[in-house]
């Protein structure tokens, strides 16, 4: 069952004299529980695609349907609420709230969702345990290593029980060991929670773990490989 349908998506930046066609007629579908990587060289359009998927950027043309909701037909306030309820984000620079502890960072989005205290605490503690940060819940981000911060970011992304998680270069700032740990955790959570993960990356280790690899160049999909069926849908 498709949870994301991308239809003939275009994004053209024309702020400068030269128009840049960052995303050029991309159509893709993602099913529930996928573990997919979007790869490509810098400037290929993968981050732009991810931003549009997250409702952070508007396409010049085309549509993105999430569970049949046309993302870019929503008003600004509806879009913010939609993101809170349906999309989890993991950023390259972790982007945790520095004045909140690891536990509070994870809980934060559930506060926004008006979840009750019991539910918040249970989910937070179970996620922190799942990402291997039991015992560090009261540490602020500045007291955690990069890998630990990114694991908190993953727990935060999953806290709201989103339909899918968008991870933009999540391992770019991590060493090999942290990358391995993070990928294993995300893979495990993907299996346990059956949540779709979509990565933008050029890290080969992420590509190796992904069960679907979409390659983009110059804003176009040049290959879409599902490892489980070993078929190229190009």
């Amino acid at each position, binding site marked *: 069952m498709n949870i994301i349908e991308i239809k003939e998506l275009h994004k053209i930046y024309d702020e400068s004299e030269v128009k840049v066609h960052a995303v050029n007629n991309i159509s893709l579908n993602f099913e529930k529980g996928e573990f997919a990587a979007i790869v490509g060289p810098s400037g290929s359009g993968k981050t732009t695609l991810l931003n549009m998927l997250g409702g952070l950027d508007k396409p010049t043309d085309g549509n993105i349907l999430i569970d049949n909701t046309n993302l870019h037909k929503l008003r600004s306030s509806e879009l913010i609420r939609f993101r809170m309820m349906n999309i989890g984000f993991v*950023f390259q620079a972790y*982007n945790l709230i520095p*004045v*909140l502890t690891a536990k509070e960072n994870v809980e*934060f989005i559930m506060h926004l969702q008006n979840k009750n205290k019991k539910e918040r605490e249970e989910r937070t503690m179970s996620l922190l345990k799942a990402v291997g940060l039991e015992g560090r819940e009261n540490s602020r981000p500045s007291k955690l290593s990069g890998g630990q911060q990114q694991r908190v970011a993953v727990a935060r992304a999953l806290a709201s029980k989103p339909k899918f998680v968008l991870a933009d270069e999540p391992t770019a700032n991590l060493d090999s060991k942290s990358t391995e740990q993070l990928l294993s955790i995300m893979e495990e959570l993907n299996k346990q929670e059956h949540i779709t993960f979509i990565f933008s990356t050029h890290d080969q280790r992420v590509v190796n773990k992904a069960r679907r690899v979409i390659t983009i160049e110059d804003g176009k999909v040049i290959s879409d490989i599902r490892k489980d069926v070993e078929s190229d849908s190009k």
Partner: protein
Amino acid sequence: MGTNIKLAWRNLWRNKRRTLITVASIFFGVVFSAYMTSMQEGSYTKMVEIVVKFYSGYMQVHHEDYWENKSINNTFEYSSELKDMILANKDVDDVIPRLESFGLASSKELTKGSMIFGIDPQGEDKLNQLGLKVREGKYLQPNDSGVVIGAGLAKYLQLTVNDTLVIISQGYHGVSAADKFPIRGIIKHVSPELNKMIVYMSLPKCQEFFGAENRLTSLVVHVIDQDHMKRSLRRLKESIESPYSIMSWEEMQPEVVQQIESDRAGGVIMKAILYLVIAFGILGTIMMMIMERRREFGVMVAIGMKKAKLASVIFFETLFIGLLGVISGILFSLPLLYYQSANPIPLTGQAAELMEDFGFAPYMFFSVQWEVFSQQAISVFIITLIIAVYPVISILRLKAIKAMRG
């Protein structure tokens, strides 16, 4: 709401030094402004006290035509009913009768226009400690047939204690008023002007002199607490009917009110400049804070925080900065100003002489009225609210993607 407040409070201490510098600027502004206001209000209170004590009292009851035409013909008959009705007001402490008019005071070949005050010596002494102002001789007795005159008048007429003063005037309904009065004492009045023309005599003697038996120009109403004057004035205005009228000291001495108001306006300009400097200090901090955290705000909106909620966090941060400055400033000012109020700053040299010439004690007085402090709190609160508009607008216009790109 709790999370927003917690976030705001913690954010405040992300850059401790900057927050403390901003709070300190508000702190010093509040302390300086409270000190200035306290000194101003303290001097006004003293000024009012002098005016009330030595001139008009807090309120006066007159014949309704007297204030427009201060003639002895516009006097009224002193009745115990009127006095009792005024004293029935629980804020009123005492009622003191007066008969005031003008006359020519003479001695040998010298003559000078003078103000003649027929007073109840005991009542007047209670109101303004007039007896203590007598420099030579003695103060009046209740039915005294002599007079106490101002030192300036005595000097001009070359008179001293036990000499005789001649007064010629026109009495009630045009009767001739002329008599000789032994000088019982010489008084140094707090007003240099009155000092040159004042003549005090006992009320019965004055009424006899002007042929105005049992008649008064005014009943001075003294209140227990100055703060309740307006309330008692309102009540008395409701109960006092024609042919009487009652006036407050502000109505009788509009020039004093005007002087206080114009001085206050000067103070307001000074404080406005001071608070403007503080406002720019706070604004600078808030602008820096917004710029530094733009990316973070972008992330918060991206993950689903409503902009209005985020704006409220920043609003609380701005408010906390203001509150910290105001609370610490007031906490410091309170004991300082209470100390200064109990120990006014003595003036020396020419400044002291000038104050004494105008009948003021040569001190800088301080007020500890609640308004001295509440004014500062309200001012900073309003400034904070105005400044908070900037981050709120910035956040409402924030584009998450642009903010995250930095």
